[in-house]
């Protein structure tokens, strides 16, 4: 059995907490409770190849200015999600700068873009072009919905499998 640390980053209200809650407990709530500081969750998964992984999932508070980010929260991560809200264009540009900073800080970590709230597609301000641009900074990208559960499990299992392959933290 291996344990790996995964962090979720992104500005306020993009749905980091909701995504974790959906994945770990299969619960979604419309209520918005701002995360203060950090909260840790965990999920035991068995990868398709049979390997057991315990994901230690760190839910961070959303911050518009990523530069203030507490380095101690990120220390030792093996992977991270950068989450954006498809209905808010500014969340996407912040996501890009977060991703750049993270690539510098953790060149060996696995990462994935999540563009969340896919159930509100008709309200999305994000174009396919934006998404293609995102793919340049990162290896993978999912359109997710914490509400319907679309791509949530897939995104977590995919990054977990990639993290499990690495023989360092």
């Amino acid at each position, binding site marked *: *059995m*291996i*344990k790996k640390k995964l962090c979720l980053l992104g500005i306020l209200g993009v749905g980091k907490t909701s995504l974790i809650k959906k994945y770990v407990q299969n619960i979604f709530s419309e209520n918005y409770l701002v995360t203060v500081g950090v909260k840790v969750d965990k999920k035991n998964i068995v990868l398709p190849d049979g390997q057991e992984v315990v994901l230690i999932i760190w839910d961070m508070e959303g911050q518009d200015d990523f530069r203030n980010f507490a380095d101690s929260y990120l*220390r030792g991560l093996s992977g991270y999600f950068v989450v954006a809200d498809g209905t808010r264009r500014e969340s996407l540009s912040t996501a890009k700068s977060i991703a750049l900073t993270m690539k510098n800080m953790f060149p060996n970590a696995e990462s994935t873009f999540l563009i969340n709230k896919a159930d509100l597609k008709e309200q999305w301000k994000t174009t396919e072009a934006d998404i293609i641009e995102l793919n340049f900074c990162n290896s993978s990208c999912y359109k997710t919905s914490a509400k319907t559960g679309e791509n949530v499990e897939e995104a977590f299992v995919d990054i977990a499998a990639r993290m499990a392959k690495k023989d360092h933290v």
Partner: protein
Amino acid sequence: MSDEKENPGLDERLKDLDPQEIYNIKALMKRMQGGNITPVAVGKTLPEAVLIGDEGSQRLSKSMTGITERSIAASVEENPEALTTALFPIIGSAIRKALEKFLAEFMDSMNRGLEKTLSVKRLQWRYESIKTGVPYLEIVLRETIQYRVEHVFLIHKKTGILIKDVSIEGKTGPDSDMVAPMLSVIRDYIKDSMALKKSEEVDSIKAGAHTIMVEDGPYATLALFVRGNADIKARTAAQEVLETVHLRYGSVFKAFSGNMKPFDGVESLLKRCLISQGRQSEKKKPVYAISLLSIILLAFLTFGILGIVSGQSRKALIKSLDAEPGIVVVSSKTLFGKTKLKLLQDPRAKMAQDVASSVKTSLLRYTLVSEPYLSPLFSDSMPANKAVPEELLALGRKLAEIVLYFEQDSDELRTGQEGAVREAGNILSELIGKSAAYGFSTSVDIVGHAAGNVQDEAALLISDIRAKKAFALFAEINTHLVNYVKALGLGISEPLVPIELTEEDRIKNRSVTFKAIFEQIK
């Protein structure tokens, strides 16, 4: 042949011997002449030779002392770092051990004198227990336990990931995997908000009745959840364990990738931190002095006031005290109408007062000095005074030897165990039948176990259904038995193999065992 040249006529002289002897002598001569001692040959025999040379008077060690000292000196001169690095973990603990030994001896000599106070205290607790109805044991625990380490976490420092945790039996709480990272977050938070220096670490956090004691090493952090106020002993234990963890798992930590497998077995180390400390150790002196004073005072007072005690009642009291299980009268001295009785008293025995009142004697005219002792008449499993007959004990032991094995994560018996089930059922029937004849009521706990090293709900559940399965099997054999057996799942708290290293160990721990409990029918 060469030996013939040097020893002309040798064969002639040897011819009377038998062929084996001739061969031996020739071989010996060859070896003597050969003398071909090569470095390779020496290298092969040197370790053995050194061992042999050192046997008995250890002459070799003595002769090598000087050389060894000089070579160490040379090594220190050349590269002191190599040696200090190698010695660091040993020196640290050696110094601590020496100090500890000194302190322990010091405390011990002091305590021995004070131990008598304890017996007086114990009598007081007995009295309190009778007066208040609070169980005696509870009072003893309350009065003596100063702190108890309930949960120990070994945490990978950089990631905050929990490596392993151990806790005292029956302790449940939030998921340890989530507690461990939060703990490092909290410590970082405190450090940040108090603007502590980089080298200053938050090494203890107080929360309600608990203290979280934290020790940091280069790779790992050890956190102790302590009920009460831990003392230096707990801190030292934590430091020692952390040092040993680094010594043994240093290279594993260096290459840490989240893999938990290499840390199997570290639990036994962590368990060393699950200590508790009694309240008595430091504060004995005043209590002792006070109780001693009061005994002396009481002696004087009663001596002054009391008249002559009737020899008759004194004899009756001594006789009945002596007859009481767990009480031994060592000596009795009567001076000026005051009798001093020296007793050995098992804490589980009846109070001397009760014995006295049963023979209608007031203890006012007596001074009782009792020393605590453990009477063999009491066994822990049996509160009653009568010993359990050997025949029953033998059956109980036989039953305890039976183990039923189960499939992984299942209440399915592994194949080929029908015989064991039947045997357990037979012993059980015999035990219950024979118990009644001896005036004992016997019950049997069917104890379910689980493999693994985390006492979580799953472990408890699986052990519970295993115990229930065994229970059902007995019911099938003999419905009568179900009134005497009880199924209970203990999870991993009483495993057959405490430290699982191999799959075989795990197989052993997926099991059910039996525990007979004997109770005298009153």
